[in-house]
């Protein structure tokens, strides 16, 4: 035993786990010290989630063991994990939307008065105190579905703390947060470690790892490729460990040379799915040869904006001009044919027909055009030829163009969509969250493609919740807040902090 080492709170030893032919974890070791923030870094599919699911008892390891405070334990269910004071905040929150904060927190361990009567009042007080103590204030009587996403996350964390967790596992906790909320969360995590709580923090954001982690374990293809002290490395070093080769984190791009206005939106009003106003007198111009980035916390009208431009959502009033042509009221097909390419925000749901082959997905917006169809009959040879060409050009990793698209990894799915949309002859490219949840290597590729499109004279409208992405790619930035553009300026006139404030409050 190394005497200098703090006692271990949680340990994974030689964990192996396979799903059919896929080896998700191959002899994985992880050591989390007491009071440590331990970042688990890796690309999608690297095996991070599998590992923490084993630690939390959701999966059973094929081999290897889990040790809590040095002792081997059987983790057969989350119940066992909770018994051993391990808490987990999933990427997709496990809350009951119609119940109150307190009800959610005590669920499964309800406080009772004599005779088995529920005692929510006492629980609510405890929740309130707990929140105050850790800077996680939330109204214990509020109904969860009415809370903003950042507060729902607080409820998740409080739930683990209520059960006196010694180890807290957070799966991509910052993916849903604004920069300010992220900073706050990191502070909270710091204060938790001061009380001896250990934290496993899954992320693929390098900046956060460097900012907060005491130790980082990097995984690639199911194996641990290294564990290091973040102080001894930098973003490039971590990215290289993650991907296995050196990656360009910031695409080099020349000064933009904007030309004529391609897209001109004037006083657009659009409703959301609940018939509430989503865009209010929204105006925007995008010129050829520029990337216009729309920064904003999700749910401030970005989705409705993209859907209105692409003809998927009816507009209430206002106009959308493509060049000189009024597009409002046109069908999605007409608009697409007018020269709009669209990388949708939700690639599984909106970008791909999963069971269709890769080839069919690559022509999903052009299948009716010559040479892919003649007199209503599909021309398989032409489709396959185009698909083979695009798969090679865009480096889509698939065993065959005839495989169902749903079998591809996230990054490769996104490449299929990018290949399809960028080979579609267009003057405007709408890219909504184009790199969400994909690996660093694919992000680099997609970013390069967006810049290439810009340099080829295409007007690019980039909508992203990733501030880093907006700042590194955009020539101009607009901040959207509650359906309004609250600021527009060239990118270098904004600071990160300013944009963050504009995103959360509408003014800086």
């Amino acid at each position: 035993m190394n005497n200098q080492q703090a006692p271990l709170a949680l340990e994974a030893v030689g964990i192996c786990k396979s799903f059919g032919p896929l080896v998700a974890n191959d002899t994985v070791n992880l050591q989390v010290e007491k009071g440590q923030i331990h970042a688990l870094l890796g690309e999608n599919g690297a095996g991070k989630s599998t590992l923490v699911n084993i630690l939390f008892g959701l999966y059973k390891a094929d081999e290897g063991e889990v040790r809590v405070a040095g002792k081997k334990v059987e983790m057969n269910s989350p119940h066992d994990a909770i018994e051993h004071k391990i808490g987990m905040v999933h990427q997709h929150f496990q809350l009951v939307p119609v119940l109150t904060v307190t009800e959610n927190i005590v669920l499964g361990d309800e406080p009772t008065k004599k005779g088995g009567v529920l005692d929510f009042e006492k629980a609510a007080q405890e929740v309130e105190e707990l929140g105050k103590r850790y800077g996680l204030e939330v109204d214990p009587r509020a109904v969860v579905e009415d809370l903003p996403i950042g507060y729902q996350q607080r409820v998740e964390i409080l739930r683990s703390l209520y059960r006196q967790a010694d180890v807290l596992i957070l799966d991509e906790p910052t993916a849903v947060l604004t920069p300010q909320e992220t900073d706050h969360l990191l502070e909270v995590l710091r204060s938790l470690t001061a009380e001896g709580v250990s934290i496993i923090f899954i992320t693929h954001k390098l900046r956060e790892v460097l900012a907060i982690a005491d130790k980082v374990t990097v995984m690639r293809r199911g194996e641990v490729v290294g564990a290091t002290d973040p102080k001894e490395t930098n973003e490039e070093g971590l990215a290289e460990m993650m991907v296995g080769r050196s990656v360009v984190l910031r695409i080099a791009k020349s000064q933009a040379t904007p030309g004529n206005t391609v897209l001109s939106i004037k006083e657009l009003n659009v409703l959301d799915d609940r018939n509430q106003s989503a865009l209010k007198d929204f105006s925007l111009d995008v010129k050829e040869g520029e990337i216009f980035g729309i920064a904003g916390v999700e749910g401030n009208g970005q989705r409705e904006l993209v859907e209105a431009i692409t003809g998927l959502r009816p507009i209430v009033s206002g106009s959308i001009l493509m060049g000189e042509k009024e597009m409002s009221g046109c069908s999605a097909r007409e608009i697409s044919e007018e020269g709009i390419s669209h990388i949708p925000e939700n690639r599984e749901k909106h970008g791909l027909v999963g069971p269709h082959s890769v080839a069919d997905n690559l022509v999903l917006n052009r299948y009716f055009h010559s040479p892919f169809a003649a007199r209503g009959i599909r021309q398989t040879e032409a489709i396959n030829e185009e698909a083979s060409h695009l798969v090679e050009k865009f480096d889509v990793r698939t065993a065959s163009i005839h495989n169902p698209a749903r079998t591809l990894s996230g990054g490769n799915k996104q490449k299929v969509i990018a290949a399809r949309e960028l080979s579609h002859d267009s003057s405007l490219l709408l890219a909504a969250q184009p790199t969400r949840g994909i690996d660093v290597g694919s992000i680099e590729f997609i970013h390069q493609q967006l810049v290439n499109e810009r340099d080829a004279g295409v007007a690019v409208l980039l909508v992203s919740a990733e501030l880093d992405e907006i700042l590194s790619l955009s020539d101009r930035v607009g901040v959207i807040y509650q359906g309004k553009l609250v600021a527009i300026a060239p990118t270098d006139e904004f600071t990160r902090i300013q944009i963050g404030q504009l995103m959360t409050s509408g003014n800086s």
Partner: protein
Amino acid sequence: MKILRSALVPIIAVVLALLAGALLIQLSGSSPLEAYSALFEGSFVGWERFGTTLEKATPLIMGGLAVAFAFKGGLFNIGGQGQLLFGALIAGAAGYGFTGLPWIIHMPLALLLGAAAGAAWGAIPGVLKATRGAHEVITTIMLNFVAANAAEWLCTKVWRKPGDILVRTPMIEGSAEIPTFGNIPLGFLIAVAFALGVWYLLQKTTFGFEVRSVGLNPSAASYAGISTKRIVILTMAISGFLAGIGGSIETLGVLGRYEPGFNAGLGFDGITIALLARTNPIAVIPSAVLIASMDASASLMQFKAGVAPEITDVIEALILLFVATPIIVRWFFKSRQGEEISFGANWGSS
């Protein structure tokens, strides 16, 4: 290999159903071996019996195609019954109403009018779904009742021959009949041609690609510029068209007139067949022949082995149960997780 794999579940389901049926026959005091040999004999041994089996298979193929096609488009058409019934009625009316036409015109005309009636009846739930969001399962079930009663009224008040005590249309003209060559009914060949045609439409045409895309992922299809409303309406209309053909052939090739109640359950058997065929149009043919063979030989089974004819209904139900169970389980599981359910995605995978 691929065909074999996708046929595995249906074949296992049939075998399991037959085994369970054998147990029931044994328990009821008869010999399963005798019963099943009578089943085979009654449906396939001898040209005449074989012809009868094919004749019974014909509306089942069309009903199965109707349901299968709708599944491909992500829709659950339970209205095959009503669409088939309307097809049968209108074909009957056209069969006796037009006189003096040559066979080459009259028969196809009556057939197509029947099909058009089925298409129109099928399009109603399609329009309701596309414009009002009404679920097709509900509307097609309700329209089955409307169809049955509307047909009865038309038969009673409009098309009944004066003096006929039964509620039915008059006999069709000879020029509207679909003949039988030897023992092979032409109607069966028409149905087989439609099965091949539906397969071609779905697999080879841009329209079929649109239908399948909407069935598998309607949101992605609309993002790709496909009008899902148009596809929903057309899918339901074509589904109704296919069911209408089934009803027309029954009137023009088998019964010679429309009588209410002739086709009790035919439209619902289409659901069994489409599922057994895993929505593959070509596989609908053997699936329909299998179900038809049980219907065709039920009486011989009773005569030779003393087995109640209802046992074939039980076996059919068991087949459906075994085919559908893994699907139902998966569907239930998915819907519990709040995911969007597309029947096409789950049932159109063959």
